[in-house]
């Protein structure tokens, strides 16, 4: 599972991992905006961003090759559009899309590989994202694998026992989705009862409080300012 790998990476304990999630989210956003506004022809700036992202990956003691490969999942789709640009006589625009897509994915993966899920959500909450949405994301993440496994088990069971005619297959797939829903609903009620038993009042407490300290500001200025400066140079 791709996200299990991210979860593993995010458990590191380096300078980057220990920084306040809000600082890392801000750095990632600066990166993403600067990358998204690059024009075809700003290859040098793009290469510099690539170098900075690689350095950050190494500084966080993450496996560089695997991170680069993980970011490359966006490339097949981008290649299709690059081919269209080639056909339209603007190969540079196509290459720019591929470059921007890959760099953006790299920045996103780096954020996720240095920030655990609870920290990320806490960071978003400190940035005033709606708490209700954050909690929905929290529960979604918690039960994602549980339900995906249940769905996979139902698929395997149907593949080995159910009939083969297309109409029948369609009906049983609909039935499986319905049963999955009913089970999810029951599970949600059980979760709610368990949460109530633990005194849940709409907020999940954290074991460690997060405070924005001087090193967080250093990280932000040390990375974001050069990135912005490079972007301004490109104009």
């Amino acid at each position, binding site marked *: 599972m791709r996200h299990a790998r991210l979860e593993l990476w995010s458990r590191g304990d380096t300078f980057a991992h220990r920084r306040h999630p809000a600082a890392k989210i801000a750095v990632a956003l600066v990166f993403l905006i600067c990358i998204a506004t690059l024009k075809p022809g700003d290859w040098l700036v793009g290469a510099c961003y690539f170098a900075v992202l690689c350095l950050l990956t190494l500084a966080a003691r993450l496996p560089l090759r695997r991170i680069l490969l993980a970011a490359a999942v966006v490339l097949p789709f981008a290649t299709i559009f690059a081919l269209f640009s080639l056909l339209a006589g603007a190969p540079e625009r196509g290459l720019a899309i591929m470059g921007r897509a890959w760099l953006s994915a790299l920045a996103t993966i780096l954020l996720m590989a240095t920030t655990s899920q609870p920290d990320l959500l806490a960071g978003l909450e400190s940035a005033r994202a709606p708490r209700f949405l954050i909690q929905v994301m929290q529960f979604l993440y918690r039960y994602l694998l549980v339900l995906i496994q249940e769905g996979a088990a139902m698929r395997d069971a149907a593949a080995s026992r159910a009939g083969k005619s297309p109409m029948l297959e369609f009906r049983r797939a609909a039935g499986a989705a319905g049963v999955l829903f009913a089970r999810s*609903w029951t599970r949600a009620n059980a979760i709610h009862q368990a949460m109530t038993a633990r005194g849940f009042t709409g907020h999940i407490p954290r074991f460690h409080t997060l405070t924005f300290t001087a090193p967080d500001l250093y990280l932000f200025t040390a990375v974001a300012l050069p990135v912005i400066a490079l972007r301004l140079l490109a104009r």
Partner: protein
Amino acid sequence: MHIPDGYLSARVWGATGAISAPAVVFLARRAQAKFDHHRVPLMGVMGAFVFAAQMINFPAGNGTSSHLVGAALLACLLGPAAASIVMTAILATQALLFQDGGLLALGANIFNMAIAGVFAGYLPFLLLKGSRAGLFLAGFCSLMTAAVLALAELWISGVAMPPAMLTISLAWFLISALIEGALTMAVAAALERIQPGCLKRPASGRRAWLVAGLVAVVLASCGWLIASERPDGLQSVALRAGIADRVTSLFAAPFGDYQASFVSNPALSRTLAGLAGLAVIYVLCIAISRALASGKREGA
């Protein structure tokens, strides 16, 4: 249909982000008012359910298979505000964990699927009072709206798309939308058998509000199509007419006349783009005032 980062122009991701962010805040408040915090686990688990339901393959003929997208089904099960929030949570999770859609493009993806897609799905369900046809149209309109918006955003951003590829992708989306309609209907029927009464039978009264919201969404999306000024004149006009025609036939019903006329008339199209802007601002104002009002109620 998830737009990754690197494709959209600053104007497009900026504009969609500026619409999506306050809309999500507003919808989160609404959903919270209806589902008090005790129901948070339910909404999270519903999001996980949609992920898992995408694991189930539905045969789509010719040996290919398809899977449920789920925005319309969620809208019919949880109501539009809660469905929007669950879809937003799903899209954010997909962008962060699976690199399925970009982080900057999240505003556009939320606008397409979690806001326009959910409301376009809920409207037929509401107007046809939860009948089977309503469920089918819910799935169909939801997917088609989201897909056309995504294509329009890519096109406005200047991503090269040959007309042939545009036709093919629209045809593909049309087929996917028909399948999504059938899936929504089939899954809802299965649900009714297992757990009768689980579909959110629409209450009246909200209808006008919802219709107004949808009109704003449709107008805004078409306004963008028309208002974009692309450098390559004739070719883009041809393309524009092509897209606009299709959009007209897709959105059908009450707005048909407007769209047919503004394609041929540039002055009217400007006016409509302006109107669309107004409509969006109006909806935002309503949203903010309602949010403030509900905040007061909570405080009191």
